[in-house]
Each structure stands twice: as C-alpha cells, then as structure tokens.
C-alpha cells in the first residue's frame, strides 16, 4: 500500500521588541546571564504583569499578513507545567481566545499555488534557558529569556511532503522578515519550530496517529526528520503495527527520531484564565491602522517583479526571498540599471558570497548604486565579465564603489588597439609551435593562445578584440 504524509507545523517567533512581554526588562539576546530579570519575569509574589503594546500591534501586523481573523476579545491563560526553566511553574499563554485564527499562507510550488491554512496565532512568554553540561552534576539556568514575547503560528495539517514543509518555512520566514517583527535567527533561537506528521493510505481522508517531532534546529533538520519519520511510519504500518500517538525527538547526529520518555510526555497543562491580566478588546481602528501600514509582502513583490520587470518566476522568487535583495534590486534600477543583469549579480555572485561566508544579506556592505555602476562598466566594455567578477568580490570585501575600484586599480579593460596589437604579437612570438600548428589547420590552438594573451594582459584585454586580432595575424601571414 502507498501512504501519503499529512504534516503540520508550529513555529515560535521571538518578537524583536525592546522589552519583554509583561515587564520592562530588555528582551535583548546575548547579555550576561541573569542580568535581564525583574520581580515580574521571575514570578516573585505580589507582582502584576502588564502587556507590552508593541507586542499587540506586531501580533496584529503578523496576523494580517497571514490573512487571519483577529479576535474581538482575546485573553491570556496559565499553562501549568513543572520544569526549572519556568520560574513561576506556569507559562502565560493563550488557550481558547487567541489573538487570531483562520488565516493562510500561499506557497508557489513549481508553477502551482498551494494554500496552507493557518489555524491560529497566539501570544505567549518564552521560558529561561537551561544549560546541561555533561561534566556537571547540576543544571544551570539563565533567566534572561524568561518573559521574552513569543508569537506561535500553528498551521493546519495541510502539507503533503517534507519539501512542502520546507517551502512553507522558507516562505513564512520571508514574510516575517518583510514585516520586521523578528530576526528569525534559528541559531539564536528567535525562530523555533516543531512539526507533526501522520500517514494515511493515499487518497484516504481519515487521519492516522499523529507523531510530534521536537528538537529541530534548522529547516534542513525539519525536512530530514520528516523524511525519516515518513519512512519509519510506513515501514511500521506495512508490518501491520499500530502507531501510538507520541512525541519524538530529532537526533541530528544519528539522523533519526527517538521517542521521548513517557514521563516527560505525561503533560496535563490545566489551563485556566490568567487572573493577573485583564481581557483585551481589540479596537477595529487599531486593526485598520496596522493593516494600512503593512509593507509589500513577498508574494506581492514576486508578482510585481514578473509583471513590471519581466523577470522569470524563478528569478522573482529568489529576489523576493530576502527583503534586502529587493532593496538592492530596486535601488540599482532606480540608479539606471536594467533589471536582468542586476538580478543576475544578486542571484549569482552575491548569493554565492553569502552562502560561502554564512552571511545574511543585511550583513553585506553593498549599496544598490554600486551594482548599477558595475552593470554600467560591463555594458560600456570597460570591464570584461571576468574582471567584473573580480571587481564584485573586491567591492564586497572593501565596501567600495566599483567606479572607484576601476580608477584606483588600473582595472580598465584594454580596448586600445595599439596596446592589444603589442600583446598579440608578443604571444605569437613566444609560441612559435602553436602558430605553426594553427597554420597546419589545428585551429583549436587559438583557445590556448587566447589564454596566453589574457594572462599576459592580467585579464584586462578585451576578449573579443584580442581574439580577432590573433586570428587576423595567424591567417594573414602565410608560411
């Protein structure tokens, strides 16, 4: 029997507000341990939490970007569990009256659009960070993260493969980046995700037993864990086993999932309304104001790039992946460059540079007009394609305008015929055997001679011109 996977995702985002969800402690990452706490986030007796208004606004902003219905009234609830990362022994979260519900995210998958429904988006506070050093007999706690605002985005189980799950995460991250509400940095924990998967006979509508997978540290881990789990479950079902509903942990080293011990699983959160926080009636005017201030989102930008700038669907997708790419692209166009060559620089050299150095687009010193200048230098013939790539690398390395690099580095392409003539002659003189071969009919030695000419000119000779000159000289003199 063939099975199809049914996959849902839960994404937790840390909002990049200045302060925590319910108190004025900074929500900054990377401060000295236990230096960003106060009686409220430590849960000392007698304190009162007060909601950060920016969290509400950013929550609405995000919910609108996913086309959610915003609650008329939302409230907070206590979720009880006993774990040392939680100083109060409960987490303030939202249970039955979340901020928003019933949204969706559209994915562009090889020419078709897949709509993934968003079940709900709710607000909750983050827990502290536990450090389990193998050598120590103690677990260490840093409470700085306690109370940092989290937004949880829960999808319906609408994803049909690990690839779709991956695309969903990439698109969701792009939307959040455009909104500017979170840094979405998985290494720093500002984006975390859990996934759930069950299998059912292909074409069936009933759902199988759901397995939740936790401990996923990258989008790639999500994909690998889902692939592994789909295989594992299919094999078990194939043997006629019944799968339990359970939570499993991804083992990134062993590339497998392992069941969580049942003790950790026996959760009964006993939610009840948080008595220290009053309900929130969400003002419709606030919603329209936030809605009007929504930026262009990745899907809209893709459409615009295809329509207004005649880019392919693929190019439009790569350029809209990061907000910074779009800013570079459009800035370079404003500075006078044509769309396609600018797109090519971003998708080719820039993307390769980012991948090679593990950088985010925002971390690169690159101004849009520099890209326009580079395109212009190539168009005018001042730089060959090869030289332009060198200039591009230097431009990123030094953070300098290509126009300046060309001026100071003598990088101008040699197009002056006298200079090219001297190079061609020197190459032919130094390679009498190749010259003889060419004249015997082995015309492919021209490539070798071309290479010699480029080397002698340190890559600066105009390739078309030097090729013609060499050819001309080889054919003019007959033995």
């Amino acid at each position: 029997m063939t099975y199809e996977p049914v996959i849902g995702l839960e994404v937790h985002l840390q909002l990049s507000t200045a302060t925590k969800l319910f108190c004025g402690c900074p929500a900054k990452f990377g401060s000295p341990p236990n230096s960003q706490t106060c009686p409220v986030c430590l849960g000392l007796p007698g304190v009162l939490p007060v909601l950060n208004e920016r969290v509400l606004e950013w929550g609405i902003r995000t919910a609108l970007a996913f086309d959610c219905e915003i609650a008329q009234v939302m409230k907070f609830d206590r979720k009880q569990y006993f774990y040392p990362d939680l100083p109060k022994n409960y987490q303030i979260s939202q249970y039955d009256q979340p901020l928003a519900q019933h949204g969706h995210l559209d994915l562009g998958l090889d020419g078709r659009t897949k709509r993934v429904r968003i079940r709900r988006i709710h607000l909750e506070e983050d827990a502290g960070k536990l450090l389990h050093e193998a050598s120590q007999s103690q677990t260490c706690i840093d409470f700085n993260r306690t109370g940092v605002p989290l937004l949880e985005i829960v999808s319906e189980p609408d994803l049909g493969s690990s690839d779709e799950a991956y695309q969903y995460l990439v698109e969701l991250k792009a939307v959040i980046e455009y909104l500017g509400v979170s840094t979405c940095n998985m290494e720093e924990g500002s984006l975390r995700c859990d996934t759930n998967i069950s299998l059912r006979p292909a074409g069936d509508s009933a759902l199988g037993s759901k397995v939740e997978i936790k401990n996923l540290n990258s989008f790639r881990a999500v994909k690998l864990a889902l692939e592994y789990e789909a295989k594992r479950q299919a094999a078990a079902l194939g043997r006629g086993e019944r799968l339990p509903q359970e939570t499993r942990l991804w083992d990134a080293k062993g590339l497998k999932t392992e069941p969580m011990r049942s003790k950790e699983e026996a959760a009964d959160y006993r939610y009840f309304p948080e008595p220290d926080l009053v309900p929130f009636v969400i003002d419709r005017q606030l919603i329209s104001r936030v809605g009007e201030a929504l930026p262009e989102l990745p899907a809209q930008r893709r459409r615009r790039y295809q329509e207004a700038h005649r880019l392919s669907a693929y190019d439009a997708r790569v350029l809209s992946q990061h907000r910074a790419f779009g800013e570079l692209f459009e800035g370079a166009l404003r500075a006078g460059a044509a769309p396609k060559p600018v797109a090519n620089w971003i998708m080719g050299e820039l993307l390769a540079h980012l991948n090679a150095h593990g950088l985010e687009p925002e971390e690169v010193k690159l101004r849009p007009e520099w890209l326009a200048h580079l395109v212009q230098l190539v168009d005018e013939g001042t730089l060959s394609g090869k030289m332009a790539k060198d200039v591009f690398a230097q431009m990123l390395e030094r953070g300098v305008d290509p126009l300046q690099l060309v001026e100071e580095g003598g990088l101008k392409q040699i197009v002056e015929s006298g200079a090219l003539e001297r190079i061609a002659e020197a190459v032919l003189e130094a390679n009498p055997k190749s010259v003889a071969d060419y004249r015997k009919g082995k015309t492919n030695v021209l490539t070798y001679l071309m290479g010699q000419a480029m080397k002698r000119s340190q890559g600066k000779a105009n390739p078309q011109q030097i090729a013609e000159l060499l050819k001309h000289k080889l054919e003019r003199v007959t033995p």
Partner: protein
Amino acid sequence: MAVVTPDILRQVASLARLRLEGPALAQFAAQLDEILQYVQQLQAVETSGVEPTSHVLPLSNVLRKDEPGACLSQEAVLGLAPAQQRPFVTVPKVLET
C-alpha cells in the same frame, strides 16, 4: 461521591513532582476532597442571568509602552535562588546523560 480519589491524587502529585505514598495518599485525598466539596457550595448560586467572564474586574486593555525599565542585578537574582554557581542559578540535573 468523592471528587478526589487516591488515584487522581497520585496523578496530580506526579505532575507537581511531589512524592506522596502509602497512607498519606488516602489522608490528603480526603482532605482535598473536603475542600472541593466546600467550594462546590457555589454551584447552588443562581447564575442563569449572569454573563460569563474570565475576570472579575470591570477593566480591559491595560497596556504599557515598549520602554525599558530597571532590572535586578545579577547579584540580587542569584541571591534569591537556593543554589547558584555564578553567573547561573542551579538545580539538580534535569537531563540524564
């Protein structure tokens, strides 16, 4: 009929990480049950004309600006904890290795 049985108590105690065994189970189950029965008198109040609410105060939308305030010093925070190892608060090992 008892609301809190020794079985229910055992489950609640394990969620709360409390060790309750033997005769103590029956003893506490009976006491907790009494408390719940006492509170259950509230069920007798006529509420058909009362709007449900999650909160007793006539208040909503209490918000604050996203502006940083004062924090406790690391020194003070560690001083509040029963065990510490600068700069961390420590507890008995949570994960087995």
